[in-house]
């Protein structure tokens, strides 16, 4: 074969030699084959480990199946009806949505504020940035276990509070159903704020210094500069972070599983922990699959709406149209 100049990365731009017009037809075909050849391994993995499980879960969800023996008890939509009439599942769904909203409302502004502060010149800035990012780097399991060990009644955290002067009875951070959800959210904020701050800082780096200078020349105060220039220009970063945060909150599993296991009394159950609890723990694979499908569709619909409505301008140019 000729054409050694055609390399994988530049298939599109490689121009065929104009000297041999009859051969021109064959080249795109060969290019197509080459593209498929390189894409095939990734596609096979993607289809085998992503598409196929989704399809299988959808199939299982129409059956009453305990995971053993053949799939032979078709029950239509019963599993879905059951999920939407189960107060525990509805509570889990409500918890997911609450976490989505709280993350956006609390973590977002907090991250922007801290990023703005850290973007100013101050001594030890690199150290502070590193420290803030540490929780995000820690594995979920390690962080979750650490909090579990710190938060039992009379545990290290309560001792710490006492040493600060709070001598009264402390809330039962993980054992009281009315408190556990807020404890969970605080731990989640601790864990994921670092990522948000780093993203915001990166976004801030992309804002040209000249704009700040121009604003200063025009007599704008620091606050005015931040509100009128920095934050609007930070828009794309905020929108991408919000997207990641929403999807992460909807699919939240590991931290809950380690910290509370969905308890006490299902107070911190999320759709994902409920799915594992019921599907795996109680051998109701069919019903668990229905929950998985619901989780999938909720995430998909929200992601698509968000992309269409919010990320449209940010994504323009990033997605190539065929042709």
């Amino acid at each position, binding site marked *: 074969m000729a054409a050694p100049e055609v390399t994988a990365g530049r298939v599109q731009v490689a121009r065929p030699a104009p000297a041999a017009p009859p051969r021109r037809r064959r080249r795109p075909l060969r290019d197509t084959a080459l593209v498929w050849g390189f894409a095939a391994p990734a596609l*096979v993995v993607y289809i*085998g480990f992503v598409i196929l499980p989704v399809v299988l879960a959808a199939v299982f969800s129409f059956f009453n199946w*305990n995971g053993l*023996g053949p799939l032979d008890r078709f029950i239509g939509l019963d599993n879905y009806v*059951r999920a939407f009439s189960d107060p525990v599942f509805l509570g889990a769904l409500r918890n997911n949505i609450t976490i989505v909203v709280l993350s956006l409302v609390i973590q977002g502004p907090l991250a922007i504020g801290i990023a703005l502060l850290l973007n100013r010149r101050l001594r030890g800035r690199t150290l502070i940035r590193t420290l803030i990012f540490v929780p995000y780097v820690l594995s979920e399991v390690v962080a979750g276990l650490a909090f579990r060990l710190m938060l039992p*009644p009379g545990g290290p955290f309560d001792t710490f509070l006492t040493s600060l002067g709070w001598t009264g009875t402390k809330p039962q951070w993980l054992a009281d159903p009315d408190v556990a959800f807020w404890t969970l959210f605080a731990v989640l904020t601790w864990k994921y704020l670092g990522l948000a701050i780093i993203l915001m800082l990166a976004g801030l780096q992309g804002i040209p210094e000249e704009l700040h200078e121009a604003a200063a020349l025009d007599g704008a105060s620091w606050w005015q500069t931040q509100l009128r220039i920095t934050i609007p220009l930070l828009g794309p970063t905020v929108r991408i972070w919000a997207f990641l945060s929403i999807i992460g909150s909807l699919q939240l599993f590991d931290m809950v599983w380690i910290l509370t296991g969905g308890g*006490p009394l299902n107070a911190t159950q999320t759709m994902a922990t409920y799915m594992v609890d019921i599907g*795996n*723990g109680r*051998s109701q694979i069919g019903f668990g699959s229905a929950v998985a499908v619901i989780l999938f569709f909720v995430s998909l619909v929200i992601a698509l709406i968000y992309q269409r409505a919010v990320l449209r301008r940010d994504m323009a140019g990033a997605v190539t149209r065929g042709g």
Partner: protein
Amino acid sequence: MNSKMRWAAVAATSALALGAVAGCSGGSGEGGEDGDVTIVWWHNATGEPLSGFWEDVAAEFEEDHPGVTIEVTGYQNEELQRTLIPNQLRTGSGLDLYQQWGAGELAAQVQAGYVMDVSDQLAEEVEALGGVVAPWQYEESTYGLPYNFGIEGFWYNTELFAEAGIDEPPSTLDELYEAIDKLKAADITPIAVGAGDGWPAAHYWYNFALKSCSPEVLQAAQAELTWDDPCFVEAGELLAEFIDSDPFQEGFLATSAQQGAGSSAGMLATGEAAMELMGHWNPGVMGGILQEETGDEDATPPEFLGWFNFPAIDGAAGDPTAALGGGDGFSCSAWAPPECAELLAYISSVDVQTRFGESGAGVPVTPGSEPGVEDENLQLVLGGLRDASYVQLWFDTAYGPTVGGALNDAIVQMFGDQGSPQDIVDAMSGAAATL
């Protein structure tokens, strides 16, 4: 790299990926040439002494049976029970001898055709074991053998009991209430319960149900999965009353049963609580926790441990000497080589069972192996088991994971001050309807 080589590389990568997707089979089972047989054996012992004990048993069996290789692996209990074994059974290969908890789960596996019927091959062993083998039977056939069976009771700290001025372990519910009051008066947490794990809390209801319901009612409920008898509601009422006496540690809804010093077993082992209602494995669990906490590999279960059976209730319909218990066993998969049943028989032999007792890991079941039980507390458990007129298997095991899970969940709700005695019964009926 010329084009040809490039294509070859692409093809090879694709083939690799395809292999990764399609492959994953292989493994065990029906041996290869020359009559060589490999038995893949999965059990739930991840710590000493038991994991080493099973390796010894496997090595002895290999020695007596030339050509047989045993691949023995211990996995974490819940992982093994809920994920690894069901997934492997579904593939129809790769697993020969495996941990079997019996009853509801066994029935589901048998119905799916995954379990070897050993009734004929092991008829002698089954007869020797007697009634204890029932959870490993389904419709008159035997699908596995137990190696460990014990009953539940209160493990207690004799020193703390003495400190609180309790001379005798309680034998009636009223005496238990008195003991709780005395312990509280001495500023001692009376009972630790790992309600965060669900089942340890649920066992209180199990015991009240055992004392409220007659054996006939319990057997009928298990066979038909219906709970119409008022005794099941009565059990919930007794439990509500018990919870109202506030005997448990602070924050019990989030306490785990067996992990670390903060767990309920850890609290009993370190003298933070005076009692824990738990199965016969508890000394082993406490020994493990003390080993972890002190870093001393030779740490043993605490000396101060005592044991008493769940107290009787005056005027209740249940058999006062009935006991609640459970055990561990092994099953052979339907496709396992015949040597698997021989290995099962070997595990059940008096010799292996006696040494199992000596290891202190549990209570052996084969008659004649009792002398192996040296631990005083396990001797109490063994005595309680021998005196029991009726032994009820843990309800969650007996009813299977679907109903059992719903039952445990509803009971924990009651521990958290939500739900009524009737709700517990309704939760079981509701779950049974989805089977």
